[in-house]
């Protein structure tokens, strides 16, 4: 497993913002700003940002394909056992202040939560390597190539229909509170799944794979497995319940 080296490779993707996945430093500065703004007994900040891309195919045809960049900042403010959460996707300074104030206003209105827990002290978290550059920087052309692992053989066979979906995520999560806890984690994931049905309606096969590292998924093998399962399901005979002891 390789150590991750960089966030999104904006060189090839001029239309994707380079800060679609916030860096540790940017996330820390954002969290610190919000914690300092707090007037409540306690504050907990969670930041998620990322890029989600996908491609879909069905009936042996291309369907939809997309790319979404978004960010979410969630603030939980607490007064004793009362707490409330407000989220925003606007990172402007004044917007962040208003978000904290709104959480504080709602927390004062909230009923006591008998299960409320105090904020954690700073923690030592195990280092997890879940970020892979190859996944984060998978291009639209590479995603289309994955779709072809199913579309090409299915079209060639002529008697099966493939429907599938590939989703690729690159994102980060950061948490922070007024006790100086801060943690940052970034992760990638690729998730491929498909259904292949025989046109005579007697067989259907499903296969899937997911991994943080795009390179670890044998997409062609996944497609072959679904095609194979569909064919083998088709060749099965109808069972006779009376013969089952």
């Amino acid at each position, binding site marked *: 497993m390789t150590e991750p080296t960089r966030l999104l490779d904006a060189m090839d993707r001029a239309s994707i913002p380079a800060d679609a996945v916030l860096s540790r430093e940017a996330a820390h500065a954002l969290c610190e700003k919000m914690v300092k703004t707090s007037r409540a007994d306690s504050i907990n900040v969670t930041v998620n940002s990322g890029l989600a891309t996908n491609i879909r195919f*069905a*009936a042996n045809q291309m369907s939809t394909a997309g790319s*979404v960049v978004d960010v979410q900042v969630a603030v939980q403010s607490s007064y004793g056992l009362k707490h409330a*959460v407000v989220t925003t996707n*606007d990172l402007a300074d*004044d917007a962040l202040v208003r978000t904290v104030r709104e959480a504080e206003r709602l927390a004062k209105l909230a009923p006591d939560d008998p299960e409320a827990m105090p904020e954690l002290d700073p923690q030592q978290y195990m280092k997890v390597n879940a970020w892979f550059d190859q996944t984060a920087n998978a291009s639209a052309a590479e995603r289309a190539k994955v779709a072809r692992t199913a579309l090409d053989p299915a079209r060639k066979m002529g008697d099966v*229909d493939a*429907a599938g979906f590939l989703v690729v995520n690159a994102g980060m999560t950061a948490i922070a509170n007024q006790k100086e806890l801060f943690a940052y984690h970034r992760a990638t994931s690729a*998730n491929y799944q498909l259904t292949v*049905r025989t046109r005579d309606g007697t067989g259907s096969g499903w296969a899937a794979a997911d991994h943080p590292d795009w390179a670890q998924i044998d997409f062609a093998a996944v497609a072959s497995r679904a095609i194979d399962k569909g064919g083998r399901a088709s060749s099965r005979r109808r069972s006779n319940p009376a013969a089952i002891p």
Partner: protein
Amino acid sequence: MTNRREFLRQAGLSGTALALASALPRDAFARAAVQQQDIERFEGSAPKELMMEALNAASAAGASYADARIARFRQNFVVTREHQIINVVDTDTIGCGVRALVDGCWGFAATRTLTAEAVGGAAREAVAIAKANRVARDRPVELAASPAYPNATWKSACKTDPFDVPLEQKVDLLLKANDEAMKVDKVKYVNSILFFVKQERNYANTDGSVIAQTIIRSWPLFTATAVSADFTDFQNRQATEVAPMGRGWEYVLDQDLAGHARKWAEEAAEKLTAKPVEVGRYDLVIHPSALWLPIHESIGHPTELDRALGYEANYAGTSFVAPPEEKLGTLRYGPAFMNIQGDRSQEGAISTIGYDDDGVQPDDFLIIKNGIFNDYQTTREQASWLKWWYEKQGKPVRSHGCSYADSWSSVAFQRMPNVSLLPGNEDKSYEDLIAATDRGIAIVGDGSFSIDQQRYNGQFAGQVYYEIKGGKIAGMLKDVAYQFRTPDFWNSMDMIGGKSSYKIGGSFFDGKGQPGQVNGVSHGCVPARFRAVNVINTGRKS
């Protein structure tokens, strides 16, 4: 190897056709705030200018067609139980989604940043994705023609915007209803919820349409739970006859939750001592508050053209109403008096809208005409797939206007219009149908259900059930569920209500698509009688 169940869980794809609980955030008092500067960017002529920026960028990058949506989506949930508030949630999000067509391939990109640079970037990304997909293309996308609407507007049938109503009023309304229900002996738990949706949708396409629409939806929910004295049984009564509607706060007030709560609670308590149903075949008189759900599941879903052609084979399922060339004009779905209309025009219904997310003004069309399957639900892309059928019928090849995206960050695809059972010629009522039935069961309200992915074998329950003897209600039953094969069920329908008995039911939560999207649905219908339907007892232990 990851098994299917675990894989779907990890992928966050384990949605059901109608799911309510998953929509509720876990945090008490949660809110998503859209900030002032985004709202300012969203108001006035700014959306139009940004959409034009996106369309120009897409065209310059090589798109033969593009559309842009800049929208603000808000939700408000107020949740109570017994005497307390459980949850107050506001969600609020603004952004821009751009769809581009290049050489017959789609690309889509979305950004939350409403600047000319950002929406132009999203447009170029959408074009880049479409271009990349050309290597995998077989049949190019062809859009059916649609007129341009250069300055169109539309609004839901709403008198009072629920987002202008103070939280205190909403909580007070729910807690008063809870108080009334809690007065009933054996009723130990009460849940009540108000859901509100507001969508401010701006749309423009390279055909020349520029459309602004505001959608308001409201849904009060109420459930009373009665517990037997020895704690061996409990029964729920959900007030599912209070439908979600495309209306405002005035609709919530009209439902008079506090005025009805006691009756619903008493029915929950009565279910504890109701007679368990004896299994067998019965004539069923199904109230519109129950019948909308079988219509949704066994007619609405299988007549989605993308399902029928396998476009949902990897997620929501396929359809027994396929292939189109073997079913259109030949499949007898039900009796000759059965007419099922698809539309987006019924005032107050959830799917009602002026223009869909292809920029099409939807039409009213008959999915089932005189009992025979007549048409599918379509978008501009899908309408051309049925060219042969429309030409045979002497009809123009046009979309029925069923394109919808559940967010600015979601790509538009085919979603369900209002799918409704039209009234019969004779103005019969629910009570008339009961009076005409010698031995049967009357079913009110929708309950749990199950149906296979082709929508062929189903099982449905209700909220309350009544035994019919000699044309009269002879007492309450419990543990009733009925099973059917879809064509058998609808062909067993022998009597339906008239115009004055027509009501609308529905849900906010209908799932479909990858990435998964949720839309609201409405189904109008009249009461109907079905002959000799198989009824099981769901409470039987062995």
